[in-house]
């Protein structure tokens, strides 16, 4: 009898253990296996384990997915669910509301867009470190491409040989500084990401061009001549140029100053067609000077008729 009793007790315990094991199997959250990294916009599978139905959640930078899934089948992640780069949290809850979770990263797709800034829009010629170029490299979903890549900045002056500078991106940004060249006129700066071919290894070559206007620097060798007629003196400068021979743009102000016995008188006049002109009425001897910006020109002494 005792043997039969022990056997019965053993069977009861075993049955309880099997039941507990089954119940714990149902209560345990399904397994979730995610890849460590996937490319932006690439569909993939997340393998799950378990039985029955569960609820799958995907929480990413710009979307949230919730769907009922079978724990026997892998979960299909659509390309549209992982377009934004960043960290994603996958969560699987089984029918007993027990949840398990995992994290994976989505990295940017290959470069597809360049965002290019060139500053300033006008710059004097021959001015060191006066032009700044910054380029941000984005993929087709406008994620910053964080893996280092080379951006070529190709500089093409209006009259003169072109040249280029290269910069490697850091956190998706590349930049460079350069001085303006010696001649006025438009200068095109083109940012190029890729290696110059239209399509290499499926990566499109990216180009963005901007134009900067180089203008003459400060006036240099400013000089004027005077023509006297009675007590009227007509003054005219030679063509106003900078030290590189570039004509100062029309509208640049030139100042003529007269000092005579009546005192000091100044006329500010804009350059028109490359030269500046004005007239003074003088009474007796007068000293006339000319200036443009920080440049002082020649001085002329005239002797007007006394009226």
């Amino acid at each position, binding site marked *: 009898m005792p043997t039969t009793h022990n056997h019965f007790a053993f069977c009861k315990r075993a049955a309880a253990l099997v039941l507990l094991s089954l119940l714990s199997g149902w209560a345990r959250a399904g397994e979730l296996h995610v890849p460590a990294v996937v490319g932006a916009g690439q569909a993939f599978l997340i393998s799950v384990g378990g039985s029955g139905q569960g609820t799958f959640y995907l929480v990413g930078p710009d979307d949230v997915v919730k769907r009922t899934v079978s724990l026997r089948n892998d979960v299909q992640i659509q390309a549209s669910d992982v377009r934004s780069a*960043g960290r994603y949290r996958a969560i699987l809850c089984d029918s007993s509301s027990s949840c398990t979770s995992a994290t994976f990263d989505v990295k940017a797709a290959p470069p597809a867009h360049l965002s290019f800034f060139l500053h300033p829009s006008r710059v004097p010629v021959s001015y060191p470190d006066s032009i700044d170029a910054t380029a941000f490299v984005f993929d087709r979903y406008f994620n910053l491409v964080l893996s280092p890549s080379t951006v070529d900045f190709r500089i093409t002056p209006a009259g003169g040989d072109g040249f280029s500078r290269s910069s490697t991106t850091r*956190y998706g940004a590349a930049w460079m500084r350069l001085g303006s060249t010696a001649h006025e006129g438009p200068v095109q700066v083109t940012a190029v990401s890729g290696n110059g071919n239209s399509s290499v290894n499926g990566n499109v070559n990216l180009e963005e061009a901007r134009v900067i206007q180089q203008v003459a620097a400060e006036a240099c060798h400013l000089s004027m001549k005077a023509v006297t007629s009675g007590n009227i003196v007509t003054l005219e400068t030679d063509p106003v140029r900078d030290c590189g021979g570039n004509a100062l743009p029309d509208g640049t102000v030139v100042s003529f100053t007269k000092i005579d016995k009546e005192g000091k008188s100044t006329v500010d006049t804009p350059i028109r067609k490359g030269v500046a002109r004005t007239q003074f009425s003088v009474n007796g001897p007068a000293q006339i000077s000319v200036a443009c910006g920080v440049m002082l020109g020649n001085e002329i002494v005239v002797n007007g008729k006394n009226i």
Partner: protein
Amino acid sequence: MKSITDTTLALNKIASRLAKAASLGVVMAACALGIAQSLPPVQLDANELAPRPIEEFTGTTIARHYALAWHDLAGALESGRTDGLGDEFVGFAKNRLVQRIGDQNKTGVHVRIADHGHHLKAVFYSMDGTAMQLLDHAQIEIQIFDGDKLLDTQNELHEYLVLMTPGADRWYVRDLEELPGKP
């Protein structure tokens, strides 16, 4: 006698108004303090910034508006409301958040963030002053709910790459991207 009564009434009214004004002031101060206290702490390190250095005022403005951005972000993710996001977010960052909150509202999911602070390191400031990139080491606790049911809790260091650009009176978060975790 009447004039004494009138004076007493007038004094009572003035005292009552002063008390109301004082209590209103206390409430307003408390609200201001509450708002200030609810902002997450943000530290900015710009020692290795290139190619241009940061001005002190710019640094202060960036830290303040980045803290406000996270305050608004946490509020929007929990409440499901997007109306306040435009105060601190623009461009891709705003679009992505608006889309995510729309998805949250459709699925019934919401996120609660306990923000313990951010250590910002400025890594790039464009010469023309129109863009700044920063790395954010954020200590935040993220809880994901479906309705009232807590699905998941993460309490770890997160690293974000941030692109900020200046507006008329503030710096906006233009891009906010979480970087891959360290293996």
